[in-house]
Every structure is written in structure tokens, then in C-alpha cells.
């Protein structure tokens, strides 16, 4: 006997993600979800942009996602912003952050007192793209060391993001990465994506990136 079901596999995750957006909209808190491969410079970017945001009196909170260790949270803690660390090894070593772990993290952050929450997702170009975290803006970071073909290899990630950051631009002269091809490949997947070019090491492009984030702040 056949029974028709027609139910979305991620229905629970998507429903809670929508609740998170309602919750953060009512407190006028902007939530960014930053995703990338491991080692593309997400934490370094945060170390650069958070002090500038703080100087502009923007109240920032951070959710750090890793399978294990508190290394990234330890790097962010000198910046004196509220941080919640999520270690997914308690959840079966998940390769991504789902809305079910973001919601309690947001509750801990006390978001009524925050203008901006930045989620640093688990380093991975595949799985995090699949799971809506409830963020307002998804951002993918791709570094020049990863090669210019990655957008076409991981299309869902580049399609799901509204912003892309090409990082480690300072290393370009040592690499075979063709920056124009990388940009073209990103635009092939997502022609309307907002592209930024940065070096989190020497600070190139960081001010422009912060400017774009500030424009999105809800209050």
C-alpha cells in the first residue's frame, strides 16, 4: 500500500529558522551567517571587522561554530564582545550549524541588547549551505589559495549567499589563482551576489566591507 507523504526533509529546521528571523526582526538585530572552507580566514576577518564596528558604537555578538575546540572563540575573546561557542561534537560531530543550535545560542546572547550577531559557521563549503540558520544575510568567504574553480564545484553555497568575500588577496602574486576567473565563476552561479575583495592580513578592503555591513543594520 502506497501512501503519499510530500514532506520537506528540512521542515523542522526551516520552520525554526523562520521563527529566528521573526525573533531577531522584532529586536532589530541583524544576523550574518559567515561560511567558508576551513582556513579561508573567517576568524581573521572577524578580528579585523569587530573593532571597527565597536568604534561605530555597534553592539556585536558572536556565535562560534566548530566541531570541537574553543580556539576561534579564544581568538575573538580579547575583542570583548559576547560570544557563544557551539561545539557540534555533542550533536554527532555535525559539519554545519542547524537552526536548533542557533536558537539557544541567540537566547544566551540576549539579543535585545545587540545590533548585530555574526555566526561563524563550521568550516565546510557543502553542508552549511543546506541548513537555514535563520540569519538575514548569508556570506561566503573564499580565499585565493583555494583556487578559482571552487564556486562551480560548490554551487549551492554560492547560490545561497547574498554576499561573497574573496580573501587573502595579498597572496595573489604567489599563486596561480586567476582573480578575474574566480569573480566570473562566482557571478555565473549567482549574478546578483555582492562581492568584496579583502586581505584580512593587511586590511585591504576591510573598511568597505564594514561599510556594507553597517548599511544593513536594522536600527
Amino acid at each position: 500500500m502506497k501512501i503519499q507523504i510530500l514532506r520537506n526533509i528540512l521542515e523542522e529546521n526551516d520552520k525554526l529558522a523562520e521563527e529566528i528571523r521573526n525573533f531577531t526582526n522584532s529586536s532589530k538585530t541583524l544576523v550574518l551567517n559567515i561560511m567558508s572552507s576551513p582556513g579561508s580566514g573567517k576568524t581573521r576577518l572577524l578580528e579585523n571587522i569587530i573593532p571597527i564596528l565597536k568604534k561605530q558604537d555597534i553592539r556585536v555578538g558572536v556565535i562560534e561554530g566548530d566541531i570541537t575546540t574553543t580556539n576561534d572563540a579564544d581568538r575573538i575573546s580579547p575583542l570583548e564582545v559576547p560570544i557563544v561557542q557551539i561545539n557540534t561534537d555533542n550533536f554527532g560531530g555535525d559539519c554545519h550549524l542547524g537552526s536548533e543550535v542557533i536558537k539557544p545560542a541567540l537566547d544566551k546572547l540576549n539579543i535585545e541588547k545587540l545590533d548585530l550577531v555574526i555566526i561563524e559557521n563550521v568550516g565546510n563549503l557543502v553542508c552549511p549551505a543546506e541548513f537555514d540558520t535563520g540569519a538575514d544575510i548569508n556570506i561566503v568567504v573564499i580565499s585565493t589559495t583555494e583556487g578559482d574553480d571552487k564556486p562551480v564545484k560548490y554551487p549551492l553555497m554560492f547560490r545561497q549567499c547574498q554576499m561573497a568575500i574573496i580573501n587573502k588577496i595579498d597572496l595573489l602574486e604567489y599563486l596561480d589563482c586567476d582573480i578575474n576567473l574566480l569573480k566570473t565563476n562566482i557571478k555565473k552561479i549567482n549574478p546578483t551576489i555582492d562581492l568584496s575583495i579583502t586581505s584580512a592580513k593587511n586590511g585591504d578592503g576591510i573598511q568597505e566591507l564594514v561599510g556594507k555591513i553597517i548599511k544593513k543594520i536594522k536600527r
Partner: protein
Amino acid sequence: MHEMSIAQNIITILKDEKSKNEFKKPVKSITLITGRMNAVIPDSLKFCFDIIKKDIDFLQNSILEIKEEVIKIRCNSCNSEKEIEEPIFLCDNCNSSDIEILSGTDMYIESIDIED
């Protein structure tokens, strides 16, 4: 490895359907539709499902059948529609970037087959 999360979600939905539909007999097969955009590896998902189904009586002998859904797009400028093999979201007819994805991003349980 998002396949384990997906396998767990399939089981959650099936348990819910069992209590709603009140079927008593075991499930023979589950038909799952996954869009090509989702990067689900069928063998990996089946492997994960087969591990966790062992703990659930009415699913122990069930088979997960995975049907892949092709990626179809429509250009909102010239209204042309086509199926794409490569993830290029530009209209090859009018070069517009105003592209809507019609299919290929879904992931849902279509149906289940229960022992008579």
C-alpha cells in the same frame, strides 16, 4: 557529512507519519526526491539510513529509494526555460541574470510503501 542529519530527519518524519496515519504494518520502501543542487550523495545517505533504521521496528526492513531531480531554470526576462547540467545561472538566450530555479533544490519524502 550532512547525510546523517538528513537520515535522522527522514526517520523523524516517518515516525510522525506513523502516528498520524496509524498504519500498523512495517514500511517496505521510502521514496525520497533530492534535487541536484543539494549535493546529497545517495550511497552515503543510504548507508546512514541503514545504520539508524535498525533501531526502529517498523523501518528495519525498509529500503530507501532516492530519485534525483534535475535542475530546471526559467529566465524572467525572456521566459525561456531549460534543464541545466552545469550550475550556470545566466540565460543563454538573452544573457539575463534574472533566473528563477524551477526545480533541483527540493528534498522531500514523496511516498512510502507499506506491507499489505
